[in-house]
């Protein structure tokens, strides 16, 4: 709408950049007349819109506040004149309703801002370190919200009914301090784990089926997470990837992305220095496009291949060692004797072995990866970061994969008198806690010690930079553990909430005391898209497959938990459906269940349809790209036309003053196209 109305005066002036002073008066009068005309047109257009659109349109005008107020008053005057002519109570009612909704949306916006957590701290971090470091903290806050939601939902739907009903747990183990680390012992028979939940239906006036509640709460939460992730991934992808030319590290992009929220003097000077260095680099890249000789190319590919081989070997080695460690633990467990509900202190401490080794590997192996990174040669900076991220992801996924395989295949086949789900829950609890300890240790070594080395012992090294990619990956890994553990230990999100809370303050202190602002500016928005993408595809999908496999295929333990006595957890839904058949009027629900959810043809058809739609959209995109190229060519041609006409105008002006006014007016008309 306002495309043709925006920046009118500026556009006019840009058409006559070389106009001679003699024509300025004529030009000014013409401009002023046109401006008044356009203002009247603008007011007319605004009056025609609904109130909501009108407010939005006025807000988006690029004028000063005074002028916006004038336009608004004119529009309101126009409207009241119109109203006194045609009064309909329906129009007034809809007016009031839309006014009410607008006020509501304003109050909601203000309320949301008031409740925003850590607003002051985020602003301080953004001011001193820039927006790329800020993305880590915003990501942390976002994940924290997931966990708070999960805890609230699980607690109210699963735990509270159980507590009200009166848990039927027999436990003769006293509380020893080690429980906080291992999660076993005293905690084994509390509501922390799957084992404590009962499979009965509460009848207290209202029927509340605890089995169904457990199943559906977990499923609904995971589905909601998936939807939230998909939406944020799609919107972020659209904003940051589709329109952007990924290969450009051009000077213009660097200049336009100056971070206006920086407030510290030192930071600004440093950022200016970094920008200067980056501009020089971009110039030298363009100036000397070094053509590598064949020998050098071979050497580079050889180094790449070598480092990939070594990394994969390292990852395979880690996975194998975790596998053997798990088998050793299995042997130990069978040695202690099945059915032992209380272990000695030493035995419990031995359960900490696997999490300890896992976290140690997650801490140490990436250091090797960054060493390889330094040896290799990359054509641009971004592929360097991506390759490092891919290797780290590979490492963590393979370790998690081995652990899940062990849990699904070995632990679930143990003696049926035990509660294998609680065992898995405890293993996950231990992983979460030990991971937290190692995160703190990593912060200590990675940032504090490195700062000490950089500033006191070996000055040229300087203080360290905050490694956003590695820290975000740690967060994603921690969240995956929570997602996998949700089925086996419904209250695990509470530990996660505490963990993230403490981590936020720890990282903030470490950042402000130890780190310096990053050298390379920018690419924050694209990095954020990559992180969300990473969170979704390997980790979330992996977590949901583990939970799905457990619910679909594995036998629940016979003596504990909400699904005891059933063949598999999913049977809960089948039984419920069978029960529903007796109710009148619910035939449609049962039909949907039998023929759609349980049949494979349905999913096959859906996949085919989605693939077809994706192909259609892809072709659309290709067509649009061609259109963009054509339009660009057209603009270049128009520019050539414009300069031709301007030259002609100037030649005519030079040839005579009188003839000129008539021609001049004619020429103004044509070049204002």
């Amino acid at each position, binding site marked *: 709408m306002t495309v043709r109305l925006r920046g009118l005066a500026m*556009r006019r002036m840009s058409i006559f950049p070389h106009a001679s002073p003699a024509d300025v008066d004529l030009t000014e009068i013409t401009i002023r007349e046109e401006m008044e005309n356009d203002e009247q047109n603008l007011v007319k257009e605004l009056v025609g819109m609904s109130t909501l659109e009108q407010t939005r349109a006025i807000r988006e005008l690029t004028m*000063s506040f005074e002028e916006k*107020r004038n336009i608004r008053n004119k529009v309101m005057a126009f409207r009241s004149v119109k109203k006194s002519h045609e009064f309909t109570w329906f129009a007034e009612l809809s007016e009031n309703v839309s006014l009410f909704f607008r006020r509501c949306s304003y109050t909601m916006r203000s309320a949301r801002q008031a409740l925003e957590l850590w607003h002051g701290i985020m602003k301080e971090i953004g001011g001193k370190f820039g927006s790329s470091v800020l993305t880590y903290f915003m990501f942390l806050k976002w994940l924290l919200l997931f966990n708070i939601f999960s805890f609230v939902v699980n607690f109210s739907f699963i735990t509270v009914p159980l507590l009200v009903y009166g848990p039927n747990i027999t436990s003769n183990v006293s509380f020893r301090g080690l429980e906080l680390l291992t999660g076993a012992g005293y905690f084994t028979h509390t509501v922390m784990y799957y084992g404590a939940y009962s499979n009965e239906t509460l009848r207290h006036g209202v029927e509340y089926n605890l089995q169904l509640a457990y199943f559906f709460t977990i499923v609904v939460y995971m589905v909601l997470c998936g939807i939230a992730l998909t939406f944020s991934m799609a919107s972020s992808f659209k904003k940051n990837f589709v329109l952007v030319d990924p290969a450009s590290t051009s000077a213009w992009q660097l200049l336009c992305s100056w971070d206006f929220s920086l407030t510290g003097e030192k930071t600004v000077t440093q950022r200016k220095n970094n*920008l*200067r260095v980056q501009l020089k680099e971009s110039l030298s890249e363009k100036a000397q496009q070094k053509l590598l000789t064949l020998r050098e190319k071979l050497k580079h590919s050889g180094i790449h291949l070598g480092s990939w081989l070594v990394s994969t070997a390292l990852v395979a080695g880690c996975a194998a060692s975790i596998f053997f460690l798990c088998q050793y633990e299995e042997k130990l467990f069978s040695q202690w004797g099945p059915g032992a509900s209380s272990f000695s202190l030493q035995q419990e401490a031995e359960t900490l072995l696997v999490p300890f080794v896992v976290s140690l590997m997650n801490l140490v192996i990436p250091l090797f990866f960054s060493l390889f990174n330094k040896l290799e040669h990359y054509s641009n900076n971004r592929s360097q970061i991506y390759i490092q991220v891919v290797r780290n992801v590979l490492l963590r996924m393979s370790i998690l994969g081995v652990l899940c395989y062990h849990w699904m295949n070995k632990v679930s086949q143990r003696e049926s008198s035990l509660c294998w789900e609680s065992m898995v829950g405890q293993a996950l609890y231990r992983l979460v806690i030990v991971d937290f300890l190692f995160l703190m240790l990593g912060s200590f070594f990675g940032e504090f010690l490195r700062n000490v080395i950089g500033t006191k012992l070996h000055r040229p090294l300087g203080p360290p930079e905050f490694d956003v990619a590695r820290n975000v990956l740690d967060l994603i890994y921690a969240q995956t553990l929570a997602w996998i553990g949700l089925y086996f230990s419904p209250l695990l999100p509470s530990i996660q909430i505490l963990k993230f809370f403490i981590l936020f303050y720890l990282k903030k202190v470490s950042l402000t005391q130890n780190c310096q602002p990053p050298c390379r500016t920018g690419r924050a928005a694209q990095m954020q898209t990559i992180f969300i993408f990473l969170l979704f595809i390997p980790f979330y999908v992996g977590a949901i497959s583990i939970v799905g496999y457990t619910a679909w295929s594995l036998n629940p333990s016979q003596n504990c938990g909400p699904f005891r006595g059933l063949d598999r957890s999913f049977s809960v839904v089948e039984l419920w459906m069978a029960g529903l058949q007796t109710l009148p009027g619910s035939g449609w629900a049962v039909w949907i269940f039998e023929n759609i959810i349980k049949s494979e043809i349905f999913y096959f058809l859906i996949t085919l349809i989605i693939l077809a739609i994706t192909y259609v959209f892809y072709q659309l995109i290709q067509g649009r790209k061609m259109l963009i190229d054509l339009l660009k060519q057209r*603009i*270049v041609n*128009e*520019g050539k036309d414009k300069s031709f006409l301007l030259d002609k105008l100037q030649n005519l002006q030079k040839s005579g003053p009188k003839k000129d006014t008539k021609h001049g007016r004619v020429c103004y008309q044509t070049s204002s196209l």
Partner: protein
Amino acid sequence: MGATASQLDTGKLSEYEELTFLTKQEILLAYDRFDKLVPKEEKNRIDYRVPMEDILELPELKFNPFKERICKVFSTSDKKDGSLDFDDFLDFLSAFSDSATLEIKSHYAFHIFDFDDDGTLDRQDLKKLINCLTGKADKTSLTPDEMRMLIDNILEESDIDQDGTVNLSEFQHVISRSPDFVSSFQIVL
């Protein structure tokens, strides 16, 4: 706190809320901060203009390389001295808030970068822009050759109609391809 908030009556407050991208809290906070810059004897004048030197003392603007340009662009004073009254101040915060649209931000960014106010970014403007952002430091500043090459690269990339200058539409086109712009063109009180 109560005394300053009551000077902004609810009618004006809702008008400000409707015409800018700021929420009520942000407007009240802005009023608070603006009030501190107004000397005591002028506190009763509604449209007092705070001179540019006082605005530049705000911590959010103090070390910003574009502080003078920002004041000049958002000022509506007839003397063109960069002084801001409260309406201009709100305009400035609204354009730099996180809910402002890309068009608004790119429009104001264009005017901020347009050092000679002629409606286009020509070579002189680009040169001043680069100097502003790279600082006048010692040995590592850009040589004239590098400056020329840099400006050539910029014009090659963004001057679509090839007239030697970057006008508003070309600027907005380049900005639309830069996803970091919206999040970096922000100032929060």
